[in-house]
């Protein structure tokens, strides 16, 4: 067999692999799932980076939280990848979005809030698309992601309230110890 570039080879392999399947996903749903996947990949990277920045500063509790949330995003990405593969699409992991990395804690929270707001909008859009295409299982998966995302947004807003009302120095002090 002549040598073919590995990228193309894996695509061929992928198409062959799924030949026998009965379920093909709606094109628009696949696009929406991939968009949400891209957002989750961005979130994994940004949250993980923020976790380790916090650890480097000695803010253990913030490290733990950002790390946990990064893992939540990874699990969500996993669900999306599996769904896209099942629907005979190609999950796109090549093109993560821009990271919004903060240089101090309020900036970190602001960057995360911006990111999560975007993730939420993407998920809402994808849910609408899945509903219209009657892909209720994709919808359910996306809905679960939406719930987690809103919880994250709620947490970030709580932190911002705490900074405003307890003072930044006191707030940062409370992040020094593990929860």
């Amino acid at each position, binding site marked *: 067999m002549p040598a073919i570039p590995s990228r193309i080879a894996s695509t061929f392999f992928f198409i062959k692999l799924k030949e026998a399947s009965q379920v093909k996903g709606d094109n628009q749903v696949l696009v929406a799932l991939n968009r949400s996947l891209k957002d989750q990949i961005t979130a994994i990277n940004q949250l993980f980076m923020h976790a380790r920045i916090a650890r*480097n*500063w*000695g803010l253990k509790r913030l490290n733990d939280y950002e790390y946990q949330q990064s893992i939540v995003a990874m699990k969500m990405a996993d669900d999306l990848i599996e769904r896209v593969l099942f629907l005979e699409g190609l999950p796109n992991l090549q093109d993560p979005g821009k990271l919004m990395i903060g240089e101090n804690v309020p900036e970190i929270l602001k960057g995360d809030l911006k990111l999560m707001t975007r993730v939420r909008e993407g998920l809402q859009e994808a849910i609408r698309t899945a509903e219209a295409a009657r892909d209720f299982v994709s919808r359910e998966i996306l809905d679960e992601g939406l719930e987690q995302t809103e919880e994250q947004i709620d947490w970030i807003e709580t932190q911002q309230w705490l900074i405003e009302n307890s003072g930044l*120095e*006191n707030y*940062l*002090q409370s992040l*020094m*110890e593990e929860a």
Partner: protein
Amino acid sequence: MKGKKRVLKQLQKLLNGELAARDQYFAHSRMYEDWGLGKLYERIDHEMQEETEHADAIIKRMLFLETQPDYSQQDKVRVGASVTEMLKNDLEVEYEVTDLLKKSIAICEAEQDYETREILEKLLEDTEMDHAYWLEQQLGLIKKVGLKNYLQSQM
């Protein structure tokens, strides 16, 4: 087994530094305890034990290389008067030890004393990633949360 002269000279210098670091941590940890800063006491008491272990490794190696370590040349101990000053002085010592360890490792390599080199590498890792890094973080935290909050967290 006889050691190389240059290596032995470095080991003696390192021993002078480790013994001084041990005493400095000894002094500082007891001051923290006296002030009621229990968490700083625990941490610095642990550092003192680690410096003792470092000195132990150097002494054992020198004896094996057939040299009597000299315990009377230990470096000056810099005892601070406030928490910030104490942390800064400790960090200074750790930076000096880091420099000396790097030089010594290079000399061990040049003299083909690979076993001494390996022992020193372990000390370098502790010095950089454990001691110096932790001290840098504390000084950074004081800036971020303010001295009073920092001290409160160390009670």
